[in-house]
């Protein structure tokens, strides 16, 4: 702490230059925070995936329906201990921008399949017995101010009722939550009772979107996937079964390889920062050669002067990095609001902060080391003679 005024004064010797450099670091780390949040959101399904869960979808396209009659046959596959199914409803609430996922499910099978979701026992039972029942994720319920017991008027994007109307109404009988924050991020959804949905929809009756299969032994997942798919080989509705994590990653990659995209953008951003900050540090040190020589004259050792120059780079990156990450965090509520729930919730997690700290330290080392070594090698007499 005693050297902080000295470091600060050194950094802000050329205020405009330092502020501009600082701003570029702030922008770089804000981008880093935002893009990491996007990547984490895309991979959140994979991160919370259960190794004992498989997903069975239509072989050629996830949007092709599968017959509900497959349920019993999948259940009879050796090694399978539970099967649930879900169908994409696709919903909007009040206006176009309030879109969120709605899944038509068998309440008991689905909630048994996902024990990581928490729901009050009475609400779970109410969901199972209420044909028009629906349960909503807590984040979504909080966002729209929904209360258990109210009617939930939502319109489907793809499923008309028998009368041709896209407007549906359900009874909100429960709120779904999760103890794990990562899982809670996946609760921006509504579950509706498939019994009522399947009866009231105009087309596609007797089908579902996909099956979720629980196996007794995760090491047998691949073998069970193969034997499940073999059941329906050469049928009009062939299947593709894969572990949940693989499915989640594949689903995210249908939109694009977000991880690779984010990595490439960040490499470009940080490479620019490296050059910019490195140049600033080198220039700042070059201008201050006589001052560094004076510090050595006064008794600052070579190691101490080296550490001071490195610490200046560290301070610049720490301040810029913190401000940038802070800006990313501050932007999250607005960004989450603007996606209208179509996108998994964005957040800057502890892992992202840790990664940002490591990145800041690495950049500080890269940009601080060359001038620090120059300061280390500085000969007092030669440097002072430069006057």
């Amino acid at each position: 702490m005693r050297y902080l005024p000295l470091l600060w004064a050194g950094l802000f010797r050329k205020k405009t230059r330092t502020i501009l450099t600082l701003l570029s670091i702030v922008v770089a780390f804000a981008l880093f925070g935002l893009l990491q949040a996007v990547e984490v959101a895309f991979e959140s399904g994979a991160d919370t995936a259960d190794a004992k869960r498989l997903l069975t979808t239509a072989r050629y396209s996830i949007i092709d329906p599968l017959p509900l009659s497959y349920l019993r046959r999948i259940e009879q596959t050796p090694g399978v201990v539970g099967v649930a199914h879900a169908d994409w409803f696709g919903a909007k609430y009040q206006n176009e921008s309030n879109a969120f996922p709605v899944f038509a499910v068998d309440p008991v099978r689905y909630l048994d399949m996902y024990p990581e979701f928490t729901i009050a026992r009475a609400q779970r039972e109410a969901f199972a017995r209420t044909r028009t029942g629906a349960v909503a994720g807590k984040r979504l319920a909080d966002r729209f101010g929904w209360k258990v017991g109210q009617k939930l008027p939502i319109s489907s994007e793809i499923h008309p009722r028998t009368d041709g109307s896209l407007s549906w109404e359900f009874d909100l009988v429960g709120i779904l939550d999760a103890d794990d924050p990562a899982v809670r991020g996946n609760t921006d959804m509504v579950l509706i009772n498939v019994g009522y949905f399947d009866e009231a929809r105009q087309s596609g009756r007797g089908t579902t979107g996909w099956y979720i299969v629980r196996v007794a032994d995760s090491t047998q997942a691949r073998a069970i996937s193969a034997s499940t798919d073999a059941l329906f080989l050469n049928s009009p509705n062939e299947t593709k079964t894969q572990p949940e994590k693989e499915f989640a990653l594949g689903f995210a990659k249908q939109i694009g390889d977000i991880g690779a995209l984010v990595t490439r953008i960040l490499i470009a951003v940080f490479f620019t920062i490296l050059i910019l900050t490195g140049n600033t540090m080198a220039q700042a040190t070059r201008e201050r050669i006589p001052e560094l020589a004076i510090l050595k004259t006064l008794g600052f050792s070579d190691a101490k002067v080296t550490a001071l120059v490195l610490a200046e780079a560290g301070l610049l990156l720490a301040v810029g990095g913190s401000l940038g990450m802070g800006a990313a965090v501050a932007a999250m509520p607005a960004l989450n609001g603007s996606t209208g729930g179509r996108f998994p919730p964005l957040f800057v997690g502890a892992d992202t902060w840790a990664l940002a700290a490591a990145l800041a330290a690495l950049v500080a080392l890269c940009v601080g080391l060359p001038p620090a070594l120059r300061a280390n090698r500085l000969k007092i007499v030669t440097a002072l003679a430069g006057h």
Partner: protein
Amino acid sequence: MSAATILVEIRSVTKVYQRGRQRIEVLHGIDLDIPSGDFVALMGPSGSGKTTLLNLIGGLDTPTAGRITVGGLRIDQLSGGELAAWRAAHVGFVFQFYNLLPALSAQRNVELPLLLTDLSGAERRRRARIALSLVGLEDRAAHKPRELSGGQEQRVAIARAIVSDPTLLVCDEPTGDLDRATADEVLRLVQMLNRDHGKTVVMVTHDPKAAEYTQRRVHLDKGTMTAEPVSA
């Protein structure tokens, strides 16, 4: 230390600089004793080696041959780190161009040598204020160097040189950048530090008027000591 004690003992000191293939011997076997409490002027024409000798006495550089003992310690045998610690504890430096850190206030400039001690922040500030008041600049403590006159900057540099209470003050042309009146003020200040505070002062100067403030003059020419002044 009594006045008769030798503080700085220089024996057969040679300094050679290597510039590419060229070998430049700047000092040739210098012998010099500086008693404690002395105020000595190193004089001589440009290139005579006086600043080189001053740098060796102040531990800013090391001799190629010979030995330098200050306060009983062979400083020519110290490592770079040891020499830095020794300078911090025992030597105050005053330069022609003041060499203050422009981004720091006068107070912070004076505090700089104390950063290397275990003193608390409050104690560092107190001692810096005392040093500034000793040079008559306590009211300029918050000013940056660019807000001070040349004479004031040099007085801040002197305050910085004495704040850690060193035994030895080495001054390289301390009045070379000042007008006559201001130079006299600065020299009186250095003289006061020598006379009233017992500092041993070694000062390089071209200026015979400045040399009049010292107790003794040592003349150098072409890297050797001479008995009489040599015209520049």
